[in-house]
């Protein structure tokens, strides 16, 4: 029924199956939308946040999805600026995942503020000294860049591509993509960094506060680095998951191995820097404020030293070593294990920088305060996941996300049957134009 919209030369599941899957994700989405409306109509009293937990689950989710979406800017940087051409076979998916992550982050922020209708004040009455202002500006600009990067992909839909204007627009946008990729990398450096700065500048919170280089605390650089390191791992993990769900090989191994190797080396260098930062904080920064590092991991029911071990050793050093060691990297089970550990590690880092920072007492006579999110908070945090699943389902079905899919999954034609030839004159005209454009490109090079 929707075969006219499906890309040429690939096979998709029956429409009923697709709609069934869509309705399951849609039901979860509606649950999240209901919770979101409750928060907007009744206010943030629908959450379990309180005056000790001004920042909670949503800010963690925000930071986590932005870190995981870092695959978009870093893969774009590698492909368009550094020139790793093989990555053209995964860049579309990296952009799509980045688009989902960043639009989710903006949605969560819109729910999280007490007066959503005043959100524009952050631009209008901007305090240039605030890291959150930098986050707002760079995040909005980068989301615009991701939208620009996603549009040509949408225009490559089989029917849209038949419209000459869209076809040419898409072609020309592709030509200018290096500029957008470079802009995206520049903006990402600042918004990923400023998200790290949000915690690092809190000199009233010894757990989060870090020394600084010029005006930027160390967390500024660590957040950017970690997003560039773990983001590609997340892109590769979602690619692997998509392959498992669709029962298809979608990206060639050499592409996966290359990005996994880069991600591994980035994680290794990041976790080395993070370890140095942690040791410096343990033995210099915290004691200068009268606190032994043990203090931050005791006398409470949840935050123990296990969290430090899990973040840095188990979900930092271990996935890094797996991914840099070729024999392990090239075995799917080890590689995917490393991706999962890495995703947990970076998410845990964002968790402690938000929630543990709030939980630790600062005044000597104050107490640890723990928090359990309300169902409305959980539902609104799952909402972007459902939205992401829906967008991936639709994009995968109707857009040529994976350039190698056709080659890796040839459609076998039973003996005696002729391949279907197009007789649509408009279709032929567009294909002729595409061929002539390719010829021009070859001539130009």
């Amino acid at each position, binding site marked *: 029924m929707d075969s006219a919209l499906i890309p040429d030369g690939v096979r998709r599941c029956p429409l009923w199956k697709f709609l069934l899957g869509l309705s399951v994700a849609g039901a979860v989405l509606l649950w999240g939308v209901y919770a979101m409306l409750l928060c907007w109509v009744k*206010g*943030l*009293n629908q959450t379990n*946040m*309180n*005056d*000790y*937990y*001004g*920042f909670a689950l949503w800010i963690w989710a925000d930071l986590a999805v932005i870190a995981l979406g870092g695959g978009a800017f870093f893969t774009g940087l590698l492909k368009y600026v550094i020139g790793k051409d093989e990555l053209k076979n995964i860049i579309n998916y990296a952009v799509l995942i980045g688009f989902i992550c960043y639009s989710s982050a903006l949605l969560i922020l819109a729910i*999280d*503020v*007490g*007066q*959503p209708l*005043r*959100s524009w*004040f*952050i631009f*209008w*009455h*901007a*305090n240039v*000294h*605030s*890291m*959150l*202002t930098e986050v*707002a500006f760079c995040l909005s600009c980068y989301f615009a860049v991701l939208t620009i990067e996603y549009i040509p992909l949408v225009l490559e839909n089989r029917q849209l591509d038949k419209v000459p204007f869209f076809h040419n627009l898409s072609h020309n946008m592709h030509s200018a993509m290096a500029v957008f990729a470079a802009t995206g990398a520049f903006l990402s450096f600042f918004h990923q960094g400023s998200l790290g700065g*949000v915690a690092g*500048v*809190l*000199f*009233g*919170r*010894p757990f989060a506060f870090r020394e*600084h280089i*010029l*005006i*930027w*605390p160390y967390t500024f650089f660590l957040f950017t680095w970690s997003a560039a390191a773990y983001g590609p791992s997340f892109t590769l993990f979602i690619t692997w998951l998509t392959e498992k769900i669709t029962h298809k090989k979608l990206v060639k191994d050499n592409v996966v191995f290359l990005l996994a190797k880069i991600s591994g080396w980035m994680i290794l260098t990041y976790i080395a820097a993070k370890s140095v930062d942690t040791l410096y904080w343990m033995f210099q920064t915290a*004691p*200068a*404020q*009268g*606190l*032994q590092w043990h203090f931050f991991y005791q006398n409470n029911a949840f935050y123990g030293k296990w969290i430090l071990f899990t973040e840095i050793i188990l979900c930092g050093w271990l996935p890094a070593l797996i991914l840099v060691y070729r024999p392990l990297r090239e075995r799917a089970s080890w590689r995917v294990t490393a991706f999962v550990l890495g995703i947990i590690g970076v998410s845990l880092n964002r968790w402690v920088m938000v929630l543990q*920072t*709030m939980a630790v007492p*600062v*005044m*000597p*006579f*104050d107490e640890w*305060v723990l928090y359990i999110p309300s169902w409305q908070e959980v539902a609104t945090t799952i909402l972007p996941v459902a939205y992401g699943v829906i967008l991936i389902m639709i994009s995968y079905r109707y857009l040529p996300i994976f350039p190698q899919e056709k080659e890796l999954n040839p459609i076998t034609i039973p003996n005696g049957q002729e391949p279907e030839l197009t007789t649509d004159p408009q279709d032929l005209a567009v294909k002729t134009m595409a061929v002539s454009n390719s010829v021009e490109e070859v001539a130009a090079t």
Partner: protein
Amino acid sequence: MKQTQTHNQKPPQRYGMAIDLDKCTGCGACMVACSAENNVPFKEDETNKLLSITWMKVFRITNGREFPHAEVCYLPRPCQHCAGQHEGHSPCVSVCPATATDYSAQTGIVSQIYTRCFGCRYCMGACPYHARYFNWWDPVWPVGMEKSLSPNVSPRMRGVVEKCSFCFHRYQLARDKAYAEDKREVGEAEYQTACAQACPAGAIVFGDLNNPEHAVSRIAQPDRHDHYKSQNPRAFRLLERLGTNTKVYYLSDREWVRKAGDNYLADENPSASTPPKEHA
């Protein structure tokens, strides 16, 4: 945001407080007076103190020892009106993305602009004193009580942050009066906070820390050349080592009370602790 002054000029006002913890009985009159004066909203059920708005909050601290050596001290905690390591670099002011909280170089008071706050709560996360409160609900007053609200203080709506303002509306009234009367300066008695006036033990003293004629200045003895650190051996400031440079000074003869005002390593002597570092 930085104060511009030279040694020849008279320094701007720097309103602050001295609270004698040895006098405080923990009666809570300051909390009640503050709430009434500033139209602080309350709910029918205030059992969850993490959701209660208390601009002035009295903490009960103990020396942790057994009877007969057990001692108790009550510590009233308003907003500390931090100046930071360079004037105006308060933990909250520096992070507010929409300039909804500001530092007055003329008075040293940290303000909160309710109509500009959009409720991101970053300032709450930044404040180590938990002196900032979020309006999780719209204020609902018992029938008839709205008639007794102060007309000088705007009630806050749901979704914004609020905090102690050192009764800034009283300063505005006093300043207007003084201006109308030959543009003279605001006198010490003309601008007093509700908590200072309500304290039956006289534990709270309020005034201009930069004016040697004001009692608070004589008690706190702030050293203008060392981030206003007190030169009174009885005095300390809460979490001074963080570099918040607050304007609320606490006094006590008891060493354990003075030590309870900050974090110290096990082998550290409070009087010899390291000075706070400059923040970016």
